[in-house]
């Protein structure tokens, strides 16, 4: 009986140990799952390549203007016609962009579709728009603007 009595209190200690460990396990599970909270929404904000796509698009828009100016400069110094010079420069730009994006595991393509001229002549005033295809793919997000219409001013 003496042993039994000792055992009883021992069991109580064991039981309280069990209860407390249960609580701790519950809390650990909870804390663990609480750590996951906010993961998805931050991921959406951090991983979605909004800025990369926008920058690709914006930069191409800005560049169409620069390239137009350069194409006329080339036309005046070499024998290239404006459309040919434009295409050369645009290809050059496209290659550089492809390589710079490829470093980050993103496949981009920027290609010139056509140069729009109001009269059919390629003078500074007549070229008002260029049509460009822009695609972007990082394996999860695929973007394509076909065509992106870019206004180029004088």
């Amino acid at each position, binding site marked *: 009986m003496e042993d039994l009595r000792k055992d009883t209190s021992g069991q*109580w200690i064991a039981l309280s140990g069990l*209860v407390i460990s*249960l*609580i701790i396990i*519950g809390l650990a*599970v*909870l804390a663990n*799952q*609480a750590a*996951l*909270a*906010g*993961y*998805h*929404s931050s*991921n*959406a*904000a951090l991983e*979605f390549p*909004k800025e990369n*796509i*926008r920058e690709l*698009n914006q930069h191409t828009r800005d560049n169409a203007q620069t390239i137009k100016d350069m194409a006329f400069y080339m036309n005046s110094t070499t024998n290239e016609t404006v459309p040919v010079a434009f295409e050369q420069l645009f290809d050059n730009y496209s290659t550089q962009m492809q390589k710079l994006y490829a470093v980050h595991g993103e496949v981009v393509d920027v290609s010139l579709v056509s140069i729009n001229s109001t009269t059919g002549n390629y003078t500074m005033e007549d070229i008002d728009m260029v049509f460009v295809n*822009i695609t972007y793919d990082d394996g*999860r*997000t*695929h*973007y*394509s*603007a*076909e*065509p*992106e*219409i870019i206004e180029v001013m004088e």
Partner: protein
Amino acid sequence: MKRLFADEEGVSILFEYILFSLICIGFFMIVSVNSDEIFMQTPNEVVMQNEMSDIGNMMSTMITDMYLILPANGQIDTKYDIPPKVGTETYIINADIAYTDQIIELVSSDSGKKVRVTIGGIATTMPINGTASSSSTNHMISYDSRR
């Protein structure tokens, strides 16, 4: 007889035993009755509420971000990952009510718990629709200007 009344020692051990047992039984009854709620349901509820609002916010943030870079002519689509279960339940993301209520709704399959997330005035200008079930493997949001 007097000695019997005066002597409390026998009572004490019995009394101790009964009280002790009562308290222990009482405690364990409370614990066993409530343990499911305390250790399973409440944390599950918390986790579900957290994760569902998290996933809802992910969808809403993604749609907002995507909206801001939509091409004038062309398409954009993006894959996303969501956990197959929140807590212990699967769930459905419902964007069909976005047009009228400006809201994305997540509904869990078993308990029917609903979490709603707002999408900031975008749905009035761009129709958003579709549902996604967490148990399917591939999820995608897509936009096409020609549709």
